[in-house]
C-alpha cells in the first residue's frame, strides 16, 4: 500500500507541470492572503518571519552544511543588507512616490552583503575550522562595532521608523529565488566542489577543483541571500539596531540549520519553519488562544500556573529540544539527505538508473 503511494508520489514528482503549478498557487496565495485577510494579521506576520528565516537557514547551510565550515557571520551579513536597504529606502530612493523601487533596495542590500562575503572568503583560503569560525565571529563583532560608531546611521540606537514595505508576496518571491539558486548551485560542478572541500580539501584540489573560486562563490551566494533576508527583515520589523544583529541572532540561524540538517535544503526549510513556528506557538497568547475552548475550570489553573509563564519557559524548552534532536540525529533531522523534489531529475536518474537495471536482472 505505502509502496503504491510512493510510486504514485514519484510519478507525480516527475510531472513537468507540477513545479510551475505549485509556484503559481503559491503566488496566488501570497497575494490573496493579505488582500482578502484569509489569515489573521498575526499569522501573516509569522508566515513572513518563517519565510525570512528559510532564506537565512538555506543560505547559511551553503557554508556551514555543504562546505562544512562553521561561520558565525551570518547575522553580520544580514545587518549589512538591512542597513543598506533601510538607508536606501529612507534617505536615497524616493520610495514614497515610487514604492516600486523597494526591490531595488533589497537587491542592493543583497549585493552589499555579497561584497562583504567576498572579504570574509579571503581568510578562508588559509584558515579553516575553528580558526575560521573565530574570524567570522570577529567579522560579526566588527560589523556591529562599526555600525555602533557611525552616528549617521543611528549608532547604537539604530534606525527607527523604517517603512513597512515587506509583504507576503515579496517574501515568497525571495524564498523561491533563494531556494532555487542554492539548489542550482549545489547541483552544479561548483556545488560539488563545495561538498568535496568539506570532505577533503587537499584531495579536492588534486581532483582539479579550484577551491578558492568555489569558496568565493559559496561565501558570496550565502551572504547575498543573508543580505536579502536582512533587507526584508528591516522592512518588516521597521526598526533595526546593532543589537538586533548580534551573536544571538546568528545562534538562532545556526540552530535552524543544524536542527533541520546539514547539507540539505529541505532540512533548512524544515528547521526554519519548525523553529520559528514552535517559538510562536509556545507564546502564552497563542497557547491561551489555542486552548480557550477548554472549560474555565481547567483553563484557569492551567493559565495561572503554566501558560502565563511560557514567555520565558519557551526559551528553555527550545534549546532543550535542540539538544535532544542532536542526541538522536547528530546531523540534524535531514542531515545529508534531501527531499526528492529538490534533487534534479538528472541527478536522481544518474544515481539510480543502473541500480534499478540490476534489480531487473540486466547487468
Amino acid at each position, binding site marked *: 500500500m505505502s509502496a503504491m503511494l510512493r510510486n504514485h508520489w514519484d510519478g507525480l514528482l516527475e510531472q513537468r507541470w507540477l513545479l510551475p503549478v505549485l509556484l503559481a498557487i503559491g503566488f496566488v496565495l501570497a497575494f490573496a492572503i493579505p488582500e482578502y485577510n484569509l489569515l489573521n494579521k498575526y499569522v501573516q506576520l509569522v508566515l513572513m518571519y518563517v519565510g525570512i528565516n528559510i532564506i537565512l537557514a538555506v543560505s547559511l547551510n551553503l557554508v556551514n552544511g555543504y562546505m562544512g565550515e562553521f561561520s558565525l557571520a551570518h547575522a553580520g551579513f544580514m545587518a549589512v543588507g538591512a542597513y543598506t536597504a533601510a538607508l536606501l529606502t529612507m534617505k536615497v530612493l524616493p520610495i514614497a512616490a515610487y514604492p516600486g523601487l523597494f526591490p531595488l533596495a533589497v537587491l542592493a542590500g543583497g549585493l552589499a552583503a555579497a561584497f562583504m562575503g567576498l572579504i570574509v572568503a579571503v581568510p578562508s583560503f588559509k584558515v579553516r575550522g575553528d580558526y575560521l569560525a*573565530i574570524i567570522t565571529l570577529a567579522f560579526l563583532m566588527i560589523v556591529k562595532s562599526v555600525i555602533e560608531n557611525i552616528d549617521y546611521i543611528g549608532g547604537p540606537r539604530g534606525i527607527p521608523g523604517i517603512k513597512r514595505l515587506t509583504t507576503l508576496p515579496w517574501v515568497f518571491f525571495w524564498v523561491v529565488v533563494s531556494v532555487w539558486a542554492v539548489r542550482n548551485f549545489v547541483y552544479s560542478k561548483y556545488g560539488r566542489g563545495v561538498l568535496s572541500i568539506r570532505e577533503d580539501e587537499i584531495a579536492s584540489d588534486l581532483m582539479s577543483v579550484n577551491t578558492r573560486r568555489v569558496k568565493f562563490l559559496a561565501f558570496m551566494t550565502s551572504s547575498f541571500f543573508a543580505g536579502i533576508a536582512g533587507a526584508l527583515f528591516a522592512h518588516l520589523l521597521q526598526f533595526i539596531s546593532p543589537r538586533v544583529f548580534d551573536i544571538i541572532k546568528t545562534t538562532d540561524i545556526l540552530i535552524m540549520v543544524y536542527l533541520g540538517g546539514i547539507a540539505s535544503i529541505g532540512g533548512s526549510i524544515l528547521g526554519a519553519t519548525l523553529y520559528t513556528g514552535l517559538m510562536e506557538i509556545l507564546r502564552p497568547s497563542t497557547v491561551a488562544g489555542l486552548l480557550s475552548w477548554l472549560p474555565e475550570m481547567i483553563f484557569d489553573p492551567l493559565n495561572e500556573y503554566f501558560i502565563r509563564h511560557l514567555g520565558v519557559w519557551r526559551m528553555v524548552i527550545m534549546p532543550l529540544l535542540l539538544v535532544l534532536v542532536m542526541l538522536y540525529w547528530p546531523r540534524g533531522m535531514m542531515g545529508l539527505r534531501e527531499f526528492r523534489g529538490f534533487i534534479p531529475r538528472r541527478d536522481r536518474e544518474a544515481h539510480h538508473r543502473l541500480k534499478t537495471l540490476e534489480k531487473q536482472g540486466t547487468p
Partner: protein
Amino acid sequence: MSDGIVYWLQQILNALQLGSIYALIALGYTMVYGILTMINFAHGDVFMIGAFFCFLAATALGLSFAPTLLLTMLGAALLGVVIERLAYKPLRNAPRVSAIITALGVGLFLENFTLALAPYPKHIPPLLENVTWNLGGVSVSSLQVIIIFLSLGLMIVLDYVVHRTPVGMAMRAISWDKTFVPLMGIPVNLIISITFAIGAGLAGAAGTMYALAYPVIDPYMGIMVGWKAFISAVVGGIGNIRGAMIGAFILGGVEIMVAAFFPSTYRDFVAFTLLLLLIVIRPYGILGQPRIQKV
C-alpha cells in the same frame, strides 16, 4: 612618580585583573578542546552559573568569601561533569559540529533557565572588606589583589597538575592520541570527566571573582565574557594551557588599553580587528603548533 607612569601602572593593574578572569575561563575552553577537540560553547554559561552560585551562597546561605568560593567551584565542577555526561558523551563519535551545536543548546538552556528563575539582575553583597591602598599614586584595591593572586595561584596549581601528575599525564596523552591511548589502560571517561570538572571549577571561581568585582549579575553575562575567553584560548593556541593564559592577558591588556585611548565604543572594534590580524598572520595561535597534514 610621574603622572604618565602612574597612569600606565594603573592600566596594567586593571588589565591584569580582567586578564586573570579571562584566563580562568579560557583554561576550561582550552582543556576541553585539547582533550576532545570540541569547542564547549556552554562554558561561558557555566561561568555565569558560577556567579549565581556565588550569589546564592552569599545571600541564601550567608556564607563568607572562602566557603562561597569553594562551594561555587564545587557546584560548577559538578555542573560541568553532568553536562558532559548527559549531553556530550553520547556524541563523542558523531560529527564534531553536532557536539558544538549541542553545547550551544546547553548554553542557551542554562541562560534561559536562569532567566526564568531569576528575571531581574541580582546584586552581590560585598563579601570582602574592600580596602584601597595608594601606592605612589596607583590605587590598588584589596579585591584586585585577591583576584589577581588567587587566579595566578589556581593557574599555577593547574599547570602543576597537568604537567606533573599522573592525571595530567593522562590528559595530555589523550589529547595527543585518541586511538591508542584508550588501549593502554587509561580510564578515558574518568579523565574526561576530571577535565570537565577542573575546567568548570575554574570557571566557577572566575564567576565568583567577576561577581565580586562587578557586583550586578544577569543570566546573559556569560555570553560576551565567554566569547572573549574563548578568543583568548584561540589567540594563545587552542589546546595549549599556557597559551590560554598568555592569550587572556593579551586580550585583557588590549581591551583595557583600547578603552584608555579610544571612546569605549571602539573597544570591541579594535580588539576584534587585532584578533583578526593575529589569526591571519599566525593561524595556530601564539603557542599552538601548526598541524601537519600528511598527504
